[in-house]
């Protein structure tokens, strides 16, 4: 449980990197993702007594982080080009750097909502209803964002659609 300090620290160490990665896929900026994830956890702590279990706390952290991502979208959009360009110059490890640059560039063509929907559903594995709840949208709206976001990503990254 996250209600006590020890439990919160354990929960933080286990979930913080994943939340940063999710925020990075949404904001397309690693530094901003770190700030947002840290702030989401700092907002979780005063409410930790209300959390039923770790999954509930994780959902709260994701919801808060997605809201913070929405607030910072304008700033993040300006920073994304610099971030991708830096990765493309080979400062990161060879191979993965290009992949990240490619994926970030493809994600950059999506709207914020589409990035959030695809990240939460396809990368993090939340159910569509859970994604809708986190984003404050209806499930049908999330499906529309998912369909459009996936179509764009598949085309840009050359990923084939799974068989029915």
């Amino acid at each position, binding site marked *: 449980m996250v209600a006590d*300090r020890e439990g*919160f*620290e354990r929960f*933080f*160490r286990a979930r*913080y*990197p994943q939340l*940063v*990665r999710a925020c*990075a*896929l949404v904001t397309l900026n*690693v530094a901003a*993702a*770190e700030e947002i*994830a*840290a702030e989401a*956890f*700092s*907002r*979780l*702590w*005063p409410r930790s007594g209300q959390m039923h279990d770790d999954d509930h706390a994780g959902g709260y952290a994701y919801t808060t982080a997605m809201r913070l991502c929405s607030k910072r979208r304008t700033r993040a959009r300006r920073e994304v080009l610099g971030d991708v360009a830096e990765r493309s110059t080979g400062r990161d*490890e060879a191979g*993965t750097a290009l*992949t*990240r640059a*490619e*994926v*970030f560039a493809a*994600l950059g063509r999506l709207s914020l909502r589409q990035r959030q929907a*695809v*990240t939460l*559903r*396809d*990368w993090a*594995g939340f159910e*569509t209803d859970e994604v809708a709840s986190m984003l404050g949208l209806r499930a049908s709206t999330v*499906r529309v964002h*998912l*369909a459009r976001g*996936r179509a764009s*990503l*598949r085309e840009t*990254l050359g*990923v*084939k*659609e*799974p*068989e*029915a």
Partner: protein
Amino acid sequence: MKTDDRDERLGAALDDAVTDLRPRSPDPGLLMRQGTSRRLAVLAAALFTVAVFIGAIGLAATQFGKEADGSIAGSRASRTFASPDYRWSMPVPDGWRAFATRSVGALGRWSRDSARAW
């Protein structure tokens, strides 16, 4: 595939981009202190807003009460105009102005002042 189904391939492609990400981990104790401080600040701001709202309503009620005291019904007349000839009198709240439209009328004459009485 249905829209509700998870696209594993796309998920894997996204994971390739961030799987090697090793974020700087802040001190959880610091985050907890920040969270507590922020919560207290939000609560203080909410209390301040409520206090200002209640204060504004109280002030408005006080002002309204003062204005109501100035009405005829709620006033204590401090001046009285009377006619010694016809035995009538008229209490007038303090601060009101009474004007005689005619110095001599059917009902009598102002006992005090002439054209303009305070």
